[in-house]
């Protein structure tokens, strides 16, 4: 058993270390000076190992910290009841949700795929040892923050100390239940794809967690203790079930099919990735195109990908319209809100940068463009000729802007209406700026995603993203947009700047595209 764990841990660490080295190798500038022998370079291996340990520690502690601090502690301050009880109440119900959605055992992860399918390790000892490890990790991760934030919420020390145990008990019980269920049904549960019943249960748990405190009903210490003892007994029984369960091998055979593993992480299985994205192609014999050349090619691409293009945008527009109407009704009927809404319209335009970022579909569209189209077409030389690259780029840009601008239009109109209805402004320019900056932001994101795709073409032949520059740009985009949330600036100035920036950015990047795209737009080998 010990040996199995050590072997599996080494395996996990080896590919983690190798992928860290791989990422280092992909960094611009640096990559020129690094050779293939890197993977056997001891110094670098140590560095990558340090990073790997660091990632493990972050995984253990950081997420638990954020979860307890923001979700549990944060929410416990919202309600009027004693904070200790809110904290306990939300913690208990969220723990149940976590037990269902975060089991370790039923997560078809890459580690398990490598160890059990590719390396044919013994399923039982692999599962038991790694399960224990994950439980210990969970426990250690929770312990400090449960105590710190529990005490801050004025829970007794002993209770705060019991909370991590409560988590472990719940997880173990749910896992044992799932194993029993597998014995009966012979269907392996995938924690990433819970069945409808579980979604309903999760929804009920969320309502209980957040709704009851609102009605001034919470779990009290007595109920918690009874629950704790009860779960404790069940957990002991469950551990026995987990320990003696004879069908791990059969279960993982089912669970670890490449498709499941792909849902979770980008397994290197080209076929599965292709299958998944291929499913997005819809074929209706009556749909064709009367256009010619690039326009023909592009139009058919759009028409056969309605699922991820038009339909998603339509859904977005419906949701945005509903929110807009609610906003307008609220403004019309509750005069008390006028001041704050007017304030938001006059100074929180930066916030809408983030909203525009969130609703832009550029990223998923460019991904589909690559996997279902360019991946194959780029191997043809004619497709890489400057006139073809730019011809198709133009078509794509038009569509991308055209699709994304529709929801932006609704948002723009809504903002103008809200400003007007909440008391308006002395400077009429504000209305224009509000509207045009929303439109410009939408255009900006469309241009941005497509330009990044054409300039950095991040995918390799296996449709994996292999450009760290692309990842950095993606992250920076997110980071900057997220930072905007906090920003409060007069709409007039910020909006005007945004409009100018978006137009300049689009113009400059299009000039760059015309110069460089024919060279940069190719498959990474």
């Amino acid at each position, binding site marked *: 058993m010990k040996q199995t764990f050590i072997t599996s841990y080494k395996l996990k660490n080896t590919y983690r270390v190798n992928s860290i080295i791989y990422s280092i190798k992909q960094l611009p500038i640096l990559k020129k000076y690094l050779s293939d022998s890197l993977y056997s370079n001891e110094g670098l291996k140590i560095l990558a190992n340090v990073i790997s340990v660091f990632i493990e520690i972050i995984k253990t502690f950081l997420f638990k910290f954020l979860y307890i601090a923001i979700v549990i502690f944060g929410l416990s301050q919202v309600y009027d009841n004693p904070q200790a009880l809110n904290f306990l109440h939300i913690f208990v119900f969220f723990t149940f949700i976590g037990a269902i959605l975060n089991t370790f055992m039923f997560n078809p992860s890459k580690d398990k795929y490598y160890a059990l399918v590719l390396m044919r390790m013994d399923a039982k000892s692999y599962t038991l040892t790694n399960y224990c490890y994950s439980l210990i990790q969970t426990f250690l991760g929770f312990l400090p923050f449960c105590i710190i934030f529990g005490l801050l919420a004025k829970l007794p020390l002993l209770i705060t100390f019991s909370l991590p145990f409560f988590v472990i008990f719940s997880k173990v019980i749910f896992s044992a239940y799932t194993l029993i269920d597998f014995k009966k049904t012979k269907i392996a549960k995938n924690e990433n794809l819970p069945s409808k019943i579980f979604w309903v249960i999760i929804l009920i748990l969320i309502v209980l967690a957040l709704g009851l405190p609102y009605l001034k009903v919470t779990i009290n210490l007595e109920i918690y203790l009874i629950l704790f003892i009860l779960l404790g007994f069940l957990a002991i029984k469950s551990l026995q079930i987990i320990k003696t369960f004879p069908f791990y091998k059969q279960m993982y055979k089912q669970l670890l099919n490449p498709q499941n593993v792909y849902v979770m992480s980008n397994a290197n299985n080209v076929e599965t990735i292709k299958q998944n994205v291929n499913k997005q*192609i819809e074929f209706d014999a009556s749909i064709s195109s009367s256009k010619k050349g690039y326009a023909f*090619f592009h139009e058919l691409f759009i028409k056969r990908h309605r699922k991820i293009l038009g339909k998603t945008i339509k859904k977005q527009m419906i949701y945005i319209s509903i929110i807009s109407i609610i906003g307008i009704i609220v403004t019309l009927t509750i005069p008390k809100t006028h001041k704050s809404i007017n304030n938001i319209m006059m100074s929180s335009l930066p916030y809408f940068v983030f909203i525009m970022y969130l609703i832009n579909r550029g990223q998923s569209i460019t991904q589909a463009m690559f996997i279902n189209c360019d991946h194959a077409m780029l191997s043809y030389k*004619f497709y890489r000729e400057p006139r073809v690259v730019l011809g198709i780029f133009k078509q794509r840009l038009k569509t991308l802007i055209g699709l994304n601008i529709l929801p932006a239009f609704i948002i723009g109109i809504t903002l103008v209406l809200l400003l007007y209805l909440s008391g308006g402004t002395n400077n009429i320019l504000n209305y224009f700026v509000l509207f045009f900056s929303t439109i410009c932001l939408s255009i900006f994101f469309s241009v941005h995603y497509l330009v990044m795709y054409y300039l950095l073409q991040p995918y390799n032949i296996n449709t994996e993203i292999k450009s760290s520059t692309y990842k950095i740009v993606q992250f920076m985009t997110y980071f900057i947009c997220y930072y905007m949330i906090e920003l409060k600036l007069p709409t007039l100035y910020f909006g005007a700047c945004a409009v100018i920036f978006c137009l300049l950015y689009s113009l400059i990047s299009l000039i760059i595209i015309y110069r460089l795209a024919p060279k940069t737009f190719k498959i990474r080998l």
Partner: protein
Amino acid sequence: MKLVIKNLKKSFGDRVILKDINFEFEKGKIYGLLGRNGAGKTTLFNCLNEDLLIDEGTFYLEENNQKKKATDIGYVLSTPNVPEFLTAREFLEFFVTINKEKIKSLKTIDEYFDLVKISKNDQDKLLKDYSHGMKNKIQMLVNIIASPEILLLDEPLTSFDVVVAEEMKELLKSIKKDHILIFSTHIMELALDLCDEIVILNHQTLTKIDSKNLTEKEFKQKIIDDLKEEK
């Protein structure tokens, strides 16, 4: 017309894949490129197709002592790449429209289908529902339509059933007089059967194997000896 490669070099990091490639491929012949696994056949093709930048050297087309850049290249990959969201007919239509000026003797789409014997039922099916071999056929067809000066074929016949493979062989033989055809394969019998010249990629260089005064058996043995030979 001939394709001249001079002092071509390519390495990945410290690993030298192609070292000093010097060779002339002539029009009207099918060259069989043989090499062991990992010898660099695909890398050589990727370099010629400009998918990869070469480190040193040059390659160009030469006709009547006139040199020009070798850009008119067709490349048939071992894993067929076709746009899966189009039907075979749509793909051919698109391809023909885009390349209209370059295609020498333009035929109708149906004539092209007949050329590689794709049945009526399959012509209007999405390429994503094509089998591996059928996709390969389409890929080959597109390259034959474009009629490039140089046609690189990377293990193209392995996915075809025996009947189609035979048809494709005949097709290649019928077009060879106007093209420079380089055909990479692992299968020696196929190379001997189809190709006019055998070229070996070994020790990062290209060598022509001379079959003069040799029986077929001796020729085969010579190829194997050459491929085995360690330096």
